């Protein structure tokens, strides 16, 4: 060193600014760039991980993170463009395979690049809000490969074509499909949805629209539904094999919409195979299928429900108005029960006991049962029949099932009070004639009615049972009190019926034979002696008698007859021939009843203990009657029924109807007063609505009748009309 130079020194700042080799960054990046190239060329074995990691670290550390990042982007883009070209060049079926192979390689390369650049990922990227390396790689792949113009449409078309081939029954490479679809999913949900799912759904929609039109022309309803079901299963399977799980709902929606929803009405109404014929033929499988498929589409079930409701109403209407069926009440009710059982079974087996279907069924039954005003009477008659004979020798459970079925029909009745009327009549007859099979069954039914309609509904029916019981006790008491004094007279059995509890008929007296009259008077004295302040009236029209008669050849018979018949027959103890007028005068039975009674004594074949002249079916006022000596019967006991229609005759029906209407009046009035008392002021329409609602459980109140009752209440000054608004009513305390 020369001293010359030594002197020539410069004064420098104590601290030098550290200058990194200006080429440092470029050099380091070259190393890393080279490594990325090698990685993409699958030639990484010569690379030193430690060196690369350290270099990437140093670049970030020395604030060259930006250069590193942008270098990475451009290098990766360069390679992806190369890959795009090679994928584009692949021919036909090799296209997908090439894409899949490159995708696998890209994933591996990306992982390695990320390994080297891990430090950048950890520090530089979060603080600069850049995309992390892995995500960056996926984004670049998406933009350069999947979204490249020459690949995008080709990829979609290929995928869709494979799906279509599989739909046509071909076997496809599901593994390859799964990988490629997985790639789309990995690239982000929006890529999968935009680049595959949406076109897939569109194409499927068109396909199934065509197929459904083709199928509906060729197949019947059942077959069509089987095909649709199969398609649905296929699509679900496809999703599980190679699509994203979230596509399942979407694709099944497409199938449902195109194959079911659009053809819904046509399928249901298909001639000879639609819903109605499925119901008629009890095709539970087909019905179950239609239910399961239609349930998937909006309004599907309501379409089924509407058709079924219509069908049941129509067939039900025919059932209740069929003049043949109306002839026999028992058959009529049996028919209803049969119909109900059939549809119940369908609802349970095919419709999964769907509540809405049960409701539809109930409302349909309610609709048509009430179409026939005689339904309440018939149902009561059905019960009557069952309780008289139908339930003999039947187990308790079976009795219960029958009764439950009856109750089910009873629930459908709108005019429950009419049923009550008839039921009371029929029950009275059963009790008085002692024809009821089982008291347990009777009581059980009354209990059911009570739980259904409340205490009020059955209190009178229960009263009837109580009367029967007390009558027995009274009779026992009577005979004990009388002792031997009655030994030779006729046996008397009296039922003491509380007025009001029983179906009363206008008291029709008749002249009882003197023998009977004596006993009756004794009983009357006894009864009134033990019960103060009561009044007894004889209901001769409801009684019966057993009398012994001797015919020619000493043939003896015991005749079971009604009280009226007994009175007539007793006359023949003293005469062999009597004219109609004579009989009428002697017994004073009302004409209609007398005629009916004579008819049954003289005209019924095999039961004619009297002879009539002239011989004819009907009884006229000029006829004369003889004791029929030659009467014979194989049986010792002969029951002579009264000629009385089991069903009510037209005038009787009118009468019952009238009585029902009459009974409703106080109930309607009571309801009006109750409502008005609570509300004070109310307009007409609201009163009608509330009254109808209150009385619903008993009968359907007629608005006209309600109006009349309101008017009557106004007359009696329970209510008044508002002075200004004539539609308003006021309650008068």
């Amino acid at each position, binding site marked *: 060193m020369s001293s010359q130079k030594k002197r020539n020194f410069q004064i420098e700042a104590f601290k030098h600014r550290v200058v990194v080799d200006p080429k440092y960054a470029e050099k380091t990046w070259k190393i890393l760039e080279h490594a990325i190239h090698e990685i993409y060329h699958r030639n*990484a*074995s010569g*690379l*030193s*991980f*430690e060196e690369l*990691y*350290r270099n990437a*670290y140093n670049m970030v550390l020395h604030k060259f993170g930006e250069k590193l990042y942008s270098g990475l982007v451009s290098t990766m883009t360069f390679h992806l463009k190369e890959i795009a070209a090679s994928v584009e060049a692949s021919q036909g079926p090799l296209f997908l395979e090439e894409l899949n192979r490159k995708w696998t390689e890209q994933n*591996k390369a990306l*992982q*390695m690049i*990320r*390994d*080297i650049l*891990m*430090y950048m990922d*950890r*520090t530089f990227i*979060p*603080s600069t*809000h850049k995309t992390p390396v892995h995500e960056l790689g996926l984004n670049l792949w998406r933009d350069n490969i999947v979204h490249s113009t020459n690949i995008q449409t080709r990829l979609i078309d290929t995928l869709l074509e494979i799906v279509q081939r599989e739909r046509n029954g071909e076997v496809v490479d599901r593994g390859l499909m799964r990988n490629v679809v997985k790639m789309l999913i990995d690239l982000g949900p929006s890529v999968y949805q935009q680049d595959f799912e949406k076109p897939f759904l569109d194409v499927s929609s068109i396909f199934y629209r065509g197929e459904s039109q083709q199928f509906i022309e060729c197949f019947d309803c059942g077959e069509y539904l089987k095909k649709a079901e199969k398609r649905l299963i296929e699509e679900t399977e496809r999703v599980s094999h190679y699509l994203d799980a979230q596509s399942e709902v979407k694709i099944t929606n497409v199938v449902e919409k195109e194959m079911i929803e659009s053809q819904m009405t046509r399928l249901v109404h298909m001639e000879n195979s639609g819903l109605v014929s499925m119901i008629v033929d009890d095709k539970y499988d087909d019905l179950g299928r239609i239910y399961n498929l239609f349930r998937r589409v909006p309004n599907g079930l309501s379409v089924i429900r509407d058709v079924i409701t219509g069908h049941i109403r129509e067939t039900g209407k025919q059932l209740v108005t069929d003049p043949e069926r109306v002839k026999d009440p028992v058959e009529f009710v049996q028919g209803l029960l049969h119909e109900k059982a059939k549809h119940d079974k369908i609802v349970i087996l095919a419709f999964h006991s769907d509540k809405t279907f049960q409701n539809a069924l109930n409302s349909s039954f309610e609709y048509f049962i009430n179409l026939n005003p005689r339904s309440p009477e018939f149902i009561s008659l059905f019960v009557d029949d069952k309780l008289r004979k139908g339930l003999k020798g039947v187990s308790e459970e079976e009795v219960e099932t029958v009764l439950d079925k009856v109750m089910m029909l009873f629930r459908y009745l709108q005019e429950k009070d009419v049923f009550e009327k008839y039921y009371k009549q029929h029950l009275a007859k059963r009790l008085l004639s002692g024809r009821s099979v089982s008291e347990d069954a009777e009581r059980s039914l009354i209990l059911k009615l009570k739980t259904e309609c409340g205490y009020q509904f059955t209190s009178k029916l229960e009263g009837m049972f109580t009367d029967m019981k007390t009558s027995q006790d009274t009779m026992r008491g009577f005979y004990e009190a009388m002792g031997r004094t009655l030994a030779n007279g006729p046996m008397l059995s009296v039922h003491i019926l509380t007025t009001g509890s029983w179906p009363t008929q206008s008291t029709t007296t008749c002249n009882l034979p003197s023998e009977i009259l004596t006993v009756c008077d004794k009983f009357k004295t006894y009864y009134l002696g033990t019960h103060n302040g009561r009044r007894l009236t004889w209901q001769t029209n409801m009684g019966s008698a057993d009398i012994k008669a001797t015919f020619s050849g000493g043939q003896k018979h015991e005749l079971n007859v009604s009280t009226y018949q007994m009175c007539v027959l007793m006359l023949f103890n003293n005469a062999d021939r009597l004219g109609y007028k004579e009989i009428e005068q002697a017994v004073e039975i009302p004409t209609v009843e007398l005629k009916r009674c004579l008819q049954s004594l003289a005209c019924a074949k095999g039961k004619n203990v009297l002879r009539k002249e002239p011989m004819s079916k009907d009884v006229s006022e000029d006829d004369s009657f003889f004791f029929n000596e030659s009467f014979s019967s194989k049986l010792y006991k002969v029951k002579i029924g009264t000629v009385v229609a089991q069903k009510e005759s037209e005038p009787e029906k009118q009468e019952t109807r009238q009585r029902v209407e009459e009974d409703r009046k106080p109930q309607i009035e009571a309801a009006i007063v109750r409502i008005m008392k609570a509300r004070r002021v109310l307009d007409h329409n609201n009163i009608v609505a509330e009254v109808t609602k209150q009385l619903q459980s008993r009968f359907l109140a007629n608005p006209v009748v309600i109006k009349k009752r309101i008017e009557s209440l106004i007359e009696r000054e329970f209510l008044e009309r508002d002075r200004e608004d004539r539609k308003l009513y006021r309650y008068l305390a």
Partner: protein
Amino acid sequence: MAIQKDRVRFNVGGKIFETTATTLAIAGRESYFAAMFDENWDLQTNPAGEYFIDRNPDCFSILLDLLRTGELYIPPNVPEKLLYREALFYGLTDHIRSAKWGQFDGNRLHPLKSVTGRAPGDGTAIRASPDGGCCVAHGSMVHIYDWMLEEHPPINLDYQRVNDAGWVGSGDPTGLVISTCERLGRGQGGMGLFNSTTGELRYKFNVTHENVVKSYTAGALCFNDGCNLFSSCKGRSNEYGIGVWDQNTGQQVDFFYEPHGWSLGDADKLQWLNGSNCLLVATLFPRKDNCYISLLDFRSKSMVWSWSDMWSPANSDDRRVRDAIAMEENSSICVVNEFEDLGFMDLRRESGSVRWSSRSRLMKGKMPDEPCYPKLALHEGQLFSSMNDCISVFCGSDWVLTSRLRRSFGGSICDFSIGGDRLFALHSEENVFDIWETPPPSIV
């Protein structure tokens, strides 16, 4: 004896280490070792059968020991900062963190350090960040410390007074929202989202009223899991109330206007209740003469619960509520007065009264010269209450006092915050804050 198959030899900066692949696997996939031994890399050793790493061998030895034992022991001759830098290189910072301090438990806290700041005047707020760092607001400055308690460049708010600060959350570890006072005549103020490492402003949260951007003063802040940010706002044209913004876009999504006779825009404290999807808003004495506590339901735009001491009898002067916190698990709100008495209110009953707990008033009669109002915090079923220079910890269903945290230095505690398994307490006098943490559970 056969050589163990998973034995690995490292040459780190010239020093040889031997370990096993199993030990290295503990580092996890996001570490240098996992990347290095990935099968993609056809890894070659040098002729001596070693893998070379050009790093500091002393630190490597500590980190290797951490992987082997799960415990961190730093010899006195190794600066912590050096070790942290090395851990960052290998991707082991999370291991360091979990070895350094354990899961937060108010009853096992130990003081780690006191950090002295340089800012003049009283601190406004201290907020723990999710990763164990914190920020301290002083006047118009916000100082930021990372988990190593390394100070980052402070954020200067250009002479606008900072009211509150809050960390956006784990999704964005560097996102810091700062709310400031409006500066009259300059149309500034409001809130902004800042990058805590670089200090740059990412965007501002605006209040718009009928499509006009208004300048406003932002008060207390609160975040919910659904990416919403809430703040109490006082706008220039009576935009008083609670504003709601989307954290990710910065767009205003809702505004709850303050009802007449109530206070929302001045609120001291906001708390989001996850279970009921409601926001607790508390305006407290002495900011206002009365306290107003309410729960807002933004879906129905209604105040579903409210309480105020303006309905209370006048003699309750000594029972001024100074802070409030909702405790959803108990369906109650806990409040505290200036004597550090705790009070409770039932959230299921509308406008109930405060049930003050019968805890003895230890503080009464010996108030320090510069008292600080009590503050409350809740963390995993533990209730924290700061009073003067000490923090009390309450546990159990009856909130029994179980621990007291106190350091003799720095004067009264004006704010504290729990987060990242650490508790930060800011003192008012010496501009000092303490860090408390729970030691990791012992290995043996």
